[in-house]
């Protein structure tokens, strides 16, 4: 695909072990850890749907061709509790997305790290993982 994909060559650091419990997903079944993505896109809309919100973006390739992508975001209720509203991400906003593509090769990805073009985080919240289990508690 000739979009402006910058395929990462770095070894994949799995963050799954830092998350204390599952989200509403079988992540490994949905996304492909061998298909990292990193690109810039323009928001066309945000779907405030359960169990997770999705950000729709247009990604312009080197050839000028525009490809729509869907980027998975947090649960809408969690976003609401963090002060997000339906007006928080306006269409036309440019964002940078890093994550992994869907296993079936469709233009969908998990949004592991999403920032504005000035480097600021799109979502309020930790980008370095959760603190994990209580002290003294090895993984179960």
């Amino acid at each position: 695909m000739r979009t402006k994909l910058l395929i990462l060559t770095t070894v994949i650091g799995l963050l799954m072990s830092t998350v204390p419990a599952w989200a509403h997903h079988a992540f490994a079944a949905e996304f492909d850890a061998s298909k990292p993505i990193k690109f810039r896109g323009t928001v066309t809309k945000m779907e405030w749907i359960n169990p997770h919100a999705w950000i729709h973006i247009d990604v312009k390739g080197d050839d000028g061709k525009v490809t729509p992508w869907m980027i998975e975001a947090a649960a809408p209720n969690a976003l609401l509790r963090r002060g997000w509203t339906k007006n928080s991400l306006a269409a036309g906003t440019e964002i940078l997305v890093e994550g992994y593509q869907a296993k079936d090769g469709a233009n969908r990805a998990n949004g592991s790290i999403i920032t504005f073009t000035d480097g600021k985080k799109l979502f309020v919240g930790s980008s370095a993982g959760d603190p994990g289990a209580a002290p003294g508690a090895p993984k179960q």
Partner: protein
Amino acid sequence: MNRFLTLALILAAAITLVSIPAAAQTTSGPPARKPDAPAAAKQTPPAKGWAVPKTPWGDPDLQGTWTSDDCIGTPMQRPANLGDRPYLTEQELAQRESQLARQAENDKQETVASDARVGVGPPGHWGERARRPCKQTSLVVDPPNGRIPELTAEAKGKRIPEGAGNNNPMPASWEDFSYYIRCITRGVTGSIFPVIYGNGAQIVQAPGFVTILHEMVHEARVIPLDGRPHAGPNIRSYMGDSRGHWEGNTLVIETTNFLGNRTGIGLNGGGTPTSDALKLTERYTRIDPNTTQYEVTIDDPKTYARPWKVMFPLTQEQGYQNFEYACHEGNYAMFDSLSGARAVEKKAAEDAAKKK
């Protein structure tokens, strides 16, 4: 009522609460199946100088939206090295508190942390947060070692949900997903055990009824308190058949008539298996204006060598409310996982054909 009398009554109520053995709520069974009284993880007595509010019709008032957020990340089972110690030490509590403070500080940062890594798991910013440290070393408080009792021979190797794979990495059908991922249910315990988000439970009372509305997967349990018998043994469901009554200020809910092993006992309805013999006895006790102690005894002789108990606090937080959870409206994860598995199979077949 003078203050001394009030205090005496509260103390008496507290002693009553603490001294009621959990096994007293199980209707029958050999003595060997009675859970031991947990060594130290007993119910906290109600706050001093405070009395449990009553509804206009005189029942203890538990109404409000409660969350188990504070115990997010507390392990289900206690690490073996902590032995029979149910609570964190002062030092460990302080450590946990500073972890939460660091997390809150990190949350406020406007730019991505330098050590942030791209992953395929749920990113850290998806989670909701504990507001204060959970004091427990594990959610399981009985047996005293905080470990889930041994599974019976019949239960060993049982997969959840019954009859299909759970989170099978190569799902062949929608039936290979858990009932949680399928947006059906997380079961009774899965609906209230603390997970990374969506831990709200709204309690609404009316004369003769209590309703508990769980945000995630939007479960609504309508529980009669009027002493009516359970449904007949042939009537079975994912959430079972619940009957409630008051023991002092404690709401006791007994649930039976489960289909068995559609959900387990664990986070989001995963965890360890269950059977159609499962009986849950839940106890909700409001111990101060913003805290309700929750405990549940899991009695399932077909699955576990003995009954066991899970406990954690629920809190009310300023501005916290349940939101709509129309789970299946955008459940693309199911579609992506099925199409992902087919894509992997197709590629494997193509690779095999090339080798020939």
